């Protein structure tokens, strides 16, 4: 059984016991435990079920590479699936449950799949679910959905907060092991701004577990000294619990800080902080990850990576078993055997696949009385939910069992792979190191940065320097290069004195035993989480998947949440062997960010809830809130759709607002309309290029409606331009258009006509603008007094500065409703006060606010177009009957050339008309008009569509505008519109101006 030893672990505080729950069971651990170490201390070896076959799964690793121990954490707003027990720090009250089983972890129905494994080989889904085609929707897809996914998706809203943090440094060091700390010392002493990030809560990596001496002291003491020296340097920042998540172009890197995962009740701290780092250079000191060995039954709970077992023993004082068989192809696993023996545990045998083991570590193990068998491997692991023993065999043979050894744990080591992720993320290439049996960074093909020079340096074990002495020597050498690359100066220095055991060379072993038959190979797991076995990769090779990238996707090897940290190299080697190719010729898959999955919420940062997106508010917004406004988003603005009163529906409110405005007096908050000042000697010339009509001839004091097109000829915006003085114009844009059109103006001024003397300023938000609309509009303004607003002094399409009710204002006689209308601008700081003054004084004239829907209805009754309704980026002014607003006198304007392209000039284009149903009902929005015949796909030919459609309270019937093929030539014709249910709605083509075609209401 796995248990806590009396000898305390290095990282454990035995004076601080903690209580936690796993599947409801109350268990105990200590401060310093991970969830994994605490589970093992409670003999909870079984922690989950695999994805495909629902095989029992135990803890395999001790860090970020763990493929099996994924649990659901927390509840409700803090529920999160797929949390790795090995990287979850234990805290008091932690609650976790295991995943992917039903009804329970111990008795799982899905485990039947393991007996069907023969029928669920690689590519099973592709082969099985193709035919017959009609089965897909109702049989196959539901089945796949049922079995898809690992863990449950959270249902409640995330209760935590998250944030970003931007850091700019000369050198980012990823990994706080001895190599990373050594590099930080070098760069820090050179005065560089250094940030060191370490994913665990501890510094020094695995050196304290592996032993050895640096500069004459144990590694742990050296680490303490290094940390003390670094904390003295103001230019060096150390962040633990911060994982390097990814490296991107131009020195951009993401760090994922788990601020309060380990102390969720520790106040109002964010849960995660995403560090958005810009570094001149990056040093990857990310260490290495141990590989499993592929032998039959290597997935049983109790089979563990040898170094992980050593970690549990040394760091947490936890023994994974009483009797542990060690199986290896290298010397490092001997350290585990020695550590187990020193802890008083039994190691019945070390099975070493190499034909001899004569290094100092092997000799030391033998000296301790441990039996070492060379040329030996494991034929099969015995047991169900837990290892009970192993059958040993000759590595060179086909797996005939030589001996059965009873044990309750197996420590395996297939060698080590450098963590090359951060070298690879931005395109660094790898080279196959035959002697070390590993891919390591190819210094000749580094990832390059903005200047074309190497952007990343790998150091220590991450660079393939596995032994402590080589690791420190490499760290010193690489730190110097990285410091220089980060803009510093660094001399060549001698590496520190290092004492460590010499190691005998590794012997690559990809299948154990070498000649294992198919029955054994189909029980050798490569990818524990996704259930990919040696036999699956070999099948893929037989079926022609020669590219490693194809094999990965066909078999799902390395596609689980661990992204193949344990399985990639083993799988690749098996594939190479099956293809009879060298490993470097087969190549490897590309490592992509993130290094391990990070929370989506951390990527969102502060952008959730109220802060999800900016909301733009006018100075009059609060009045709307206080008066029942029904808000609608217009771009990022919130505009009142209508102001429903007590007992009123929104539709009733809209009708009331239209009627009241047409009969009495309405106020509209038009502050969102874009307002752009265009000024300078060339302002008129410039606007002539921007608008389709002539603006340079506009007289000061007057307004003109104008259209703007893109160079493609399409209508992009419209609005009223007021000429302020000889050199100054004020251009109104649509609500959503202010920034876009201001940008459009600046783009042309800066990049095409830079010699024209024109300046622009976006003054949209300087002013609140209120439309005072209706037959009583003038009465209200005259009551407030201050300026002459008579038709003579301020005729239609004129503007004037003055005072109304004591406010400094500018009044524009423009109308988007067809009524007598003044649009009045006041400085934004006076906007609300002016609105209140209008509201109060307007009571006797029946004043009411109206919203955007009333605005839309009134403009549609008048046949005025709306950008975004009548236009969609494919509509030219000529389509909308706006030829009158297109100057023929001008040689040029943006869009002019495009509008004579043959397609634009085609008489068959859809053009604007009014539409009325025969029964007065309202046409559905966007509905298509159908013509005669069918197209090549057998669909009805389409001849137009509805662009705006409303119930008109004024006319008491449905009115609509639409674009119809040759529409204006077909006045009075009835066309049919196709409903989605197959029905047809007949509607008559009429003039788009439904109300007051002579304009008598507005010209008073």
């Amino acid at each position, binding site marked *: 059984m796995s248990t806590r030893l009396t000898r305390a672990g290095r990282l454990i505080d035995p004076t601080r016991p903690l209580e936690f729950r796993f599947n409801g069971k109350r268990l105990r651990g200590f401060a310093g435990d991970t969830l994994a170490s605490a589970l093992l201390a409670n003999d909870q070896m079984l922690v989950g079920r695999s994805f495909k076959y629902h095989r029992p799964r135990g803890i395999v690793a001790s860090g970020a590479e763990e493929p099996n121990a994924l649990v659901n954490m927390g509840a409700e707003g803090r529920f999160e699936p797929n949390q790795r027990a090995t990287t979850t720090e234990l805290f008091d009250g932690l609650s976790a449950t295991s995943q992917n089983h039903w009804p329970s972890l111990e008795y799982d129905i899905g485990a039947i799949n393991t007996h069907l494994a023969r029928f669920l080989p690689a590519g099973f889904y592709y082969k099985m679910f193709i035919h017959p085609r009609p089965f897909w929707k109702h049989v196959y897809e539901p089945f796949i959905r049922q079995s898809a996914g690992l863990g449950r998706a959270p249902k409640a809203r995330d209760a935590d907060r998250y944030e970003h943090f931007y850091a700019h440094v000369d050198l980012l060091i990823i990994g706080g092991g001895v190599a990373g700390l050594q590099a930080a010392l070098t760069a820090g002493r050179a005065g560089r701004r250094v940030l060191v990030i370490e994913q665990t809560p501890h510094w020094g990596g695995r050196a304290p577990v592996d032993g050895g001496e640096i500069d004459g002291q144990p590694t742990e003491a050296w680490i303490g000294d290094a940390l003390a020296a670094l904390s003295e340097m103001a230019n060096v920042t150390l962040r633990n619990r911060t994982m390097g998540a990814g490296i991107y172009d131009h020195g951009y890197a993401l760090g994922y800080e788990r601020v309060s995962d380990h102390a969720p009740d520790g106040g109002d701290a964010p849960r995660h902080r995403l560090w958005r780092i810009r570094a001149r250079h990056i040093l990857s000191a990310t260490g290495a990850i141990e590989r499993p060995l592929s032998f039959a039954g290597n997935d049983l709970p109790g089979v563990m990576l040898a170094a992980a077992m050593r970690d549990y023993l040394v760091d947490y004082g936890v023994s994974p078993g009483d009797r542990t068989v060690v199986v290896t192809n290298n010397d490092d696993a001997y350290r585990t055997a020695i550590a187990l023996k020193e802890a008083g545990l039994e190691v019945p045998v070390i099975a070493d696949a190499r034909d001899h083991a004569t290094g100092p570590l092997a000799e030391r193990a033998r000296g301790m009385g441990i039996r070492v068998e060379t040329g030996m491997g494991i034929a099969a692991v015995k047991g169900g939910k837990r290892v009970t023993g192993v059958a040993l065999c000759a590595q060179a043979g086909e797996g005939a069992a030589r001996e059965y050894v009873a044990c309750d744990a197996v420590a395996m080591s297939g060698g080590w792979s450098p963590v090359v992720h951060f070298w690879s993320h931005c395109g660094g290439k790898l080279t196959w190191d035959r002697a070390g049996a590993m891919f390591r960074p190819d210094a000749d093909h580094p990832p390059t940065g903005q200047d074309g020079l190497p952007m990343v340096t790998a150091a220590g074990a991450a660079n393939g320097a596995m032994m402590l002495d080589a690791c420190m020597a490499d760290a010193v050498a690489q730190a110097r290069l990285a410091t220089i690359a980060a803009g510093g100066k660094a001399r060549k220095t001698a590496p520190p004195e290092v004492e460590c055991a010499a190691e005998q060379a590794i012997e690559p072993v990809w299948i154990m035993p070498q000649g294992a038959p198919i029955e054994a190979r189909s029980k050798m797991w490569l990818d524990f989480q996704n259930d990919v076995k040696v036999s699956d990769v070999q099948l893929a090779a037989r079926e022609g998947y020669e590219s490693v990238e194809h094999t990965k996707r066909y078999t799902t090897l390395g596609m689980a949440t661990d992204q193949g940290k344990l399985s990639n190299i083993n799988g690749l080697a098996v594939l190479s062997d099956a293809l009879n190719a060298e490993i470097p010729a087969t190549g490897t898959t590309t490592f992509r960010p993130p290094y391990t999955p990070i929370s989506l919420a951390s990527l969102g940062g502060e952008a959730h809830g109220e802060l999800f997106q900016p909301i733009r508010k006018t100075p009059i917004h609060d009045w709307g809130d206080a008066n029942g406004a029904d808000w609608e988003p217009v771009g990022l603005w919130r505009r009142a759709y209508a102001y429903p009163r007590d007992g009123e529906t929104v539709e009733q409110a809209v009708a009331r607002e239209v009627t009241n405005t047409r009969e009495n007096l309405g106020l509209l908050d038009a502050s969102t309309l874009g307002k752009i000042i265009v000024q300078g000697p060339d302002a008129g010339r410039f606007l002539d290029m921007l608008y389709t009509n002539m603006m340079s001839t506009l007289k000061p004091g007057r307004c003109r409606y104008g259209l703007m097109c893109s160079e*493609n000829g399409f209508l992009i915006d419209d609005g009223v331009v007021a000429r302020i003085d000889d050199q100054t114009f004020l251009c109104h844009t649509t609500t959503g258009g202010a920034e876009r059109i201001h940008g459009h103006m600046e783009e042309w001024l800066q990049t095409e006509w*830079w010699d024209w003397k024109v300046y622009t300023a976006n003054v949209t938000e300087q002013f609140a603008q209120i439309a005072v609309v209706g037959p009583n509009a003038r009465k209200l303004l005259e009551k407030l007094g201050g300026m002459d607003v008579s038709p003579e002094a301020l005729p239609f399409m004129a503007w004037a500065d003055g005072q109304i009710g004591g406010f400094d204002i500018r009044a524009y006689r423009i109308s988007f409703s067809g009524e007598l209308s003044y649009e009045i601008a006041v400085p934004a700081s006076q906007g609300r006060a002016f609105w209140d003054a209008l509201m109060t004084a307007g009571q006797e004239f029946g004043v009411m606010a109206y919203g955007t829907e009333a605005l839309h209805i009134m403009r549609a009754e008048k046949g005025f177009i709306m950008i975004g309704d009548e236009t969609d980026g494919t509509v030219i002014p000529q389509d909308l009957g706006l030829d009158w607003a297109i100057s023929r006198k001008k040689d040029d304007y943006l869009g002019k050339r495009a509008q004579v392209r043959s397609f634009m000039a085609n008489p068959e284009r859809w053009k604007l008309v009014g539409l009325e149903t025969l029964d007065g009902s309202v046409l559905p929005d966007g509905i298509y008009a159908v013509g005669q015949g069918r197209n090549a796909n057998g669909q009805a030919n389409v001849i137009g569509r509805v662009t705006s459609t409303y119930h008109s309270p004024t006319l008491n019937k449905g009115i609509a505008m639409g674009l119809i093929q040759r529409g204006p030539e077909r006045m009075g014709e009835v066309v049919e519109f196709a409903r989605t249910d197959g029905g047809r709605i007949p509607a008559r083509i009429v003039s788009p101006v439904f109300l007051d075609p002579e304009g008598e209401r507005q010209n008073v």
Partner: protein
Amino acid sequence: MLVLTCPYCGVAAEETELHAGGEAHLKRFGPGASDEDFTGYLFGRENPKGVHFERWLHANGCGKWFHAARCTATLELFGTYSAQLTEPPEPIRKAISAKRPGWRWREFS
């Protein structure tokens, strides 16, 4: 995510401050232009693997357009320069030649 130095405000701006504006040094064709010239102006674009010239806007910044020369394959930056130029300036061309001898882009080299 790229970092480009805006030649107008001197800020080494990351991409979230910037807005990409497509190919640089297009010649505008207006009324009277042939269909071929006009189509080329509207739609014809270079798509090189290697040296490329682009327009960028320092949108969340000083609001100025500028030009950038970079390698589309490696994202190496050769330089940024004024938007008020109809062709890449000599120092930029030299910088590119030093790193990509024999480069060509449209009529420039």
